[in-house]
């Protein structure tokens, strides 16, 4: 069935050739690449985060504030938060696209996850900076 607008004449193009001609949405590779890039970044960041949590395990507000005042700790924490939320929304998108059958619900849930992750990233990063910059 030549459903295309080939004015009556059947195309000699194979179905595979036709699909290749259409191409993809062109965003898949970027998504895949960003997911790997954030994974790689999260290896050292996660180790740092766990070690930091162990060091801070009994700490109160003052100890936390003193810890986050260090430029290195504040910077690494901001990186950890930013990369974590990027990785989270990217992974959640894959899961939602695989398992949510209804098209509308799928798009809505992906949008919701992306907006919530962006909001949480902003809130957590601003929160870190507020304490880090307090006089």
């Amino acid at each position, binding site marked *: 069935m030549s459903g295309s607008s080939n004015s009556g004449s059947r195309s000699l193009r194979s179905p595979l050739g036709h699909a290749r001609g259409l191409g993809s949405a062109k965003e898949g590779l970027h998504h895949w690449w960003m997911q790997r890039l954030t994974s790689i970044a999260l290896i050292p960041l996660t180790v740092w985060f766990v070690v930091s949590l162990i060091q801070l395990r009994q700490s109160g*507000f003052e100890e*936390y504030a003193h810890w986050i005042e260090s430029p290195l700790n504040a910077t690494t924490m901001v990186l950890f938060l930013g990369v*974590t939320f990027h990785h*989270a929304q990217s992974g*959640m998108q894959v899961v939602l696209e695989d398992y949510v059958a209804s098209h509308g619900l799928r798009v809505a849930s992906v949008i919701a*996850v992306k907006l919530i*992750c962006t909001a949480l990233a902003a809130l957590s990063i601003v929160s870190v900076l507020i304490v880090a910059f307090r006089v």
Partner: protein
Amino acid sequence: MTQAAKSSARPLSPHLQIYRLPLAAWLSITHRITGIGLTLGTLLLTWWVAAAAYGEESYDVFADFISSPFGLFILFGFSVALFFHLCNGLRHLLWDVGKNFSIAATKTSNTFVLAGTVILTAIAWLVAYF
């Protein structure tokens, strides 16, 4: 007709409820489940740093929660999920560059992922509390 009914009652393809999943498949779905869990866990992470930004009083509320038995239970689950996702994620990165695809290599890496999760969780909690 009876012949057709007979054959249609047989499981023709390995459906999830019939097929015994190999360990690698369990680890694969666990990767997704822990990913979802860790995403939910970011709420806790945000609560922690946001509470600090609001000041000492709200920080104490968070500290009281996280050091309570329920808070520690959540934190323990978070740590297991984190170490599993880290170990299995490393395996995924190796797969992405085309390494360790054979069944034998996958069985070996299954063991590494599970052992790594247990060992890293044990080290973290032992260092933290002993």
